[in-house]
């Protein structure tokens, strides 16, 4: 009965995740744009978004 305890300890200490997972296959369609912002908000934020993604 050691195995279940070991597994239980492994779960506690290890979890189950992947760092920066590879893209899934088939590839996602192109990213949709960000959720809608009202035009005036969009205008206010546009310089910041450009700065982030440039």
């Amino acid at each position, binding site marked *: 009965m*050691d195995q279940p305890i070991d597994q*239980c300890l492994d*779960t506690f200490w290890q979890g189950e995740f992947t760092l920066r997972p590879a893209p899934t296959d088939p590839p996602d369609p192109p990213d949709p*744009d*960000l959720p809608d912002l009202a035009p005036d908000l969009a*205008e*206010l*934020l546009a310089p*910041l978004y450009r700065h*982030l993604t440039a």
Partner: protein
Amino acid sequence: MYVLHAQWRVDGRLGVWAEDGGAFARRAGEGPRHPYACPAAEVAGLLRAVGPGAAWLAERGDERWLTLRLPTLGGRPTPSPDLPVGSTARGPELRPWRVPALLFDLPEAAQLLGELFDPYWPGTTVELPGGRAAELAYGASLRWLTGVHDLAWRLAGRGRVLPALVAEPGGWAARWRPAHDPASHREALALAAGCPPVARAEDGHEPTGSALLDTVLEALTDHETRVALGEDAPAAPGDGPAWLAALRGPDARLPAPPEPAEAGRLAAAAAGTEPLGRVRLAFRLAEPLGTADDDPDATVLDENWRLDVLLGPVDRPSLLLPAAELWSAGPGSAALARAVDDPIAAYLAELDRAARLLPGLRAALHRTRPTGLDLDRAGALAFLRDTAPALAAAGHGVLLPAWWQRRPRLGLAATARTTAPGSVRRAAQADRDALLDFRWQLAVGEHPLTQQELDELAAAQAGLVRFRGRWIEVDAGQLAAALRFLAAHRDDPQLDAAALLRLAATDGAVVDGLPVTAVHADGPLGDLLAGRLGRLPGARRTPPPPGFTGALRPYQERGLAWLDALGRLGLGAVLADDMGLGKTVQTLALLALEHARGARGPVLLVCPTSLVGNWRREAARFAPRLRVQLHHGPDRTAPDPAADLVITTYGVLQRDAAALRAVHWRRVVADEAQHAKNRAARQSRALRSLRSGPRIALTGTPVENRLAELHTVLDFANPGLFGTPESFREHYAVPIEQSGNRDVAAALQRLTAPFLLRRLKSDPEIGQQLPAKQEFTVRCNLTPEQAGLYQAVVADLLGRLGGLRGVERKGAVLAALGRLKQVCNHPAQLLRDQSPLGGRSGKVERLVALLGEALAEGDRALVFTQYAEFGARLQSHLRRRLGSPVLHLHGGLAAPRRQELVDRFQTPDGPGVFLLSLKAGGTGLNLTAANQVVHLDRWWNPATEDQATDRAHRIGQQRDVQVRKLVCTGTVEERIAELIDTKRELADAVIGTGEHWLTELPTEQLRELLTLSADATGS
């Protein structure tokens, strides 16, 4: 062995703590204190040992205690699985334990998680104070948090963030929140589901994985977005809302609670999720052609730039129509209607989204049938420079005029001219006979500007300027900075040859914020820049100098010219020709050349012990005018300043470091420089600390295992020129080794090309000068005795693997592999008894037969094995069976004895068989008397085996060389040989690390690789 863990605390600070494998056994449990967690100061020590970034951060952590609820067995917390101590007791319960930790505030926490992110190799070997090396593994809690940080960092960098106004304990604040796309959403879900419980073990605060992920991801996304915006983010308009300013700076707090409507609007935007766009937009900018319509003289350029919008279905990238067609109801519009429902609505919706990045589009939307925009010159430049990349990053198509990608840039051109000999400064740098005068000029692309052009540009308005018939981008600030730079540096010899070469070889080199667009030089430097020196068959050659008594082959004369040019420029060189192409001869020719020119002062040559005799003999033979001193052996005398060449070994260098440092050497030559590949090792440090003129590194394998080794060798030759090991790792080693990035590999090749010369035997010109090499894999059967032992070793290993983890598992796999190779060689090798060898090993019987045939043909053979002890037994066995003398060279022999064996073998009537240990005999020796090479057992590192083979297959070899690698059928030997043969390219990249990759294989694959197949005994 240490394991580093991390905890995201309820107060938003990051706690870092560590388990100490050494203390696991030593310290008994005592009260609530975790018995084998490191003291906080030791945690800081571990971080310091990881690297400079983590070291800097380690100073900024607060020493505090964490209370964690950890699985507890028998009154002690269980070790994490990374700690190789194992535990099989039963009945765990969660109990609180007090753990010393370092606590970090958010900015340092984010930086540290970024430093420690490593999806490939979560852990490192660290050198602790006192020179002790230890394995440091990153526990899952830490890895998980680095993964969350990495996701936050990527979201911020892609602009996938949205503002939100939130009420926090300290008042209202404006925060950036993640705005997931499908892929990042999936990634976040997986992280939440896979969150290790240890990451949520803070006593009194045990959130779900999903809640912890939300907390951490939100905090880190906000932080990383602010970092990405940086101080140079566009300023908020003075009359903009307060929350906009609070999104930019380090302080997220709002001076007053926001209007509920404002908070609601932003919240609605964040909550609103849209279906995927059905059409994809593309923006095409067309430049004005010809002159303005209304200019009768046709001298004023048309200023009308046009930005057209195109669209097509998302799932059919090839179908792209000008938006004008949408409104014309032509065939294109009909095709679109078949692919997309209501294409006009989809088009307008997508245009609305794009308008967020290109506000001018919004005005176009107000027209009845929007198809695009007219732009003036400034608008066109703003689109090209700022908006187009943002649109592309957001998934829209962008079609720009072809010249934009290749537009010549305004930058600096560096020109170097060799000054005439006898210049005033000559005396100050006596070891260089060419000095350089530098001059900076402004240039557009590669062409320096004349004064008149410079004046014209300065007078022209900034922006897109028509220049020499082409559009160029002129930045007024940059132009002013360039003019200032020129005024300050016009005739300032700020650069030396190394820096100039580096400028020329670096993509995107920048000086004082200005791009360097061209580098020109004459003399040897110009030759180096233009590739007229070194590898190409047409490159310059320097014939053998007076005082050099050998002949040089054409490629060696090119090598000599290259070494000489670098030396005259005061630069170090890495001569990395394949084994056997004459690195020794080229080096001696260089020293003879410099000696003939009147250069005086001792040159220090450092080499492995086994090569001391070789160097001495070759120097006496080829450069008899050089006064050679051996600084080696127990009776060695102090280095003689009157000697021309002082030969010493890496071992002596380490022992006599102080005495050798006291001399200023004219040059230092490191032979087999890969011996000093480990920067931290004492002999590497001793080598680098020598004071000398230009250095030379000789190596046949500049990259044996990892690119870091190449950096060490390059850095020895030209200290500091290739940056720190850390920056080299970040810019080159990681992208090349982990992602196979060919562009980066090419950039590294360009950067190192002037300083590193590598010719291969497979180069067509050189290949013609070497006899052929034929390689065979010889399959041998196991005897029943071998098969029985083999199966026993495999069964023992597979039986134990289930209970082993981490380094224990690796150790067990490596040990078993070693035992299997021994069984394949001979049962007596595994059993370590003195039982007779005859008739018990298929491989040894085959070897006897092969050698017997070779001797009968008048051939002579080298036999390589990794095992010195078995080699000794084999020597007497072969001697008896073959009735012929057999030599045996191994690491246990002193250098003079090794040299004696080599000399004896090389004599025309020397012994027919030379048994060598791979380690002691695999490099440096010249054994061209042999034309047969046998690898008795496999090292599974093609580079190492090829080096050994090259003892015989090298310049001086007159006959074709036959190479035989012996493997036992149906065993791990045969399977790995097949793996390497079929995936040689992969092998070069991956299996270069020897046998360690095998230890990483899952048990099932290991079973397949090791299990004996039925044909093994051939019966």
